[in-house]
């Protein structure tokens, strides 16, 4: 299989795991119910009040490792997908949107679990133009594991388009 080509600005990021991080708290039932309300998911498991062993919605797999946006000690906001933000910075592309995700689930994430994740840069495209502007596509793979046992919860491949902004061509 041919190796992906990376722009010089991010070539040193390829081929290794980055930003190992553990969720800032355990998976908890209130957050699950809040999400279920947000997406109007009536699955009875989320609404019975029984929280022991409750399984989180698969759509929340990536959420547990996005840190809170404020800390009482005044420390800076930490972005959830740090490798993505580093790629944006290195490439000088301050804006970005997610274009695709692909997720595989190995085992359920349950209330009380803490989630550990690591991120890999998979590929970066040549310069591209679309209706958002001039930029590049890139792909990041994230693996989510149980912080206690290291068992794999699942993996997510995320595609992004980063761009500079201004008037699109």
């Amino acid at each position: 299989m041919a190796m992906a080509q990376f722009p010089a600005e991010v070539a040193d990021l390829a081929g290794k795991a980055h930003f190992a991080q553990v969720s800032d708290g355990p998976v908890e039932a209130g957050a699950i119910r809040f999400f279920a309300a947000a997406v109007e998911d009536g699955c009875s498991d989320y609404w019975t009040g029984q929280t022991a062993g409750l399984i989180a919605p698969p759509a929340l797999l990536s959420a547990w490792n996005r840190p809170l946006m404020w800390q009482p000690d005044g420390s800076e906001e930490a972005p959830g997908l740090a490798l993505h933000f580093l790629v944006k910075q290195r490439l000088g592309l301050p804006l970005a949107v997610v274009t695709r995700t692909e997720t595989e689930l190995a085992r359920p994430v349950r209330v009380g679990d803490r989630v550990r994740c690591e991120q890999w840069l998979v590929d970066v495209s040549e310069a591209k133009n679309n209706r958002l502007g001039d930029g590049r596509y890139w792909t990041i793979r994230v693996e989510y594991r149980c912080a206690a046992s290291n068992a794999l919860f699942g993996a997510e491949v995320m595609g992004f388009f980063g761009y500079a902004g201004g008037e699109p061509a």
Partner: protein
Amino acid sequence: MSDFAQTLATLSRVVTARDIVMGAAASRDWQPQHHDHDHALAMNLPGIIMNAPTQTGWLHGYALQWAGQGARIGRWRLKMNRPVCPGMTVNLGGTVTQRKPAWDGFEWVWLDLEMWTSGEVCSSMAMLLCRPNEPNRTALAIGDAEWVCPALLG
């Protein structure tokens, strides 16, 4: 295998700003394009946009409602082609593309799902789920060591 519809009934939803902001907050996504209209416009977007976990939650809920009690999602692939913004009426639809026996009493079901508006597809999702063929069983009881999912189609 049980006999069930190959086409999912279409569901229409009007997207509100609350849907987008609450979905982003509930998935701990603080990126401004999901709550700040002016910022979204500066990104050449038509307005605040629904994030990937919220779209995933909508499509998962839609598919699981159809699949019934005891179904379990194994894989999915979400492609977002155009932004989902407040004020849009979106339709959720889907078809079964393949079914195969899984463990005794369960089957794998491959689905193609779409979210579209005015004839244009906003997002599409290929999904694999496992569902029981018998009442009072749940695919969530399948052990971690046994749970090995086949690939998505396409």
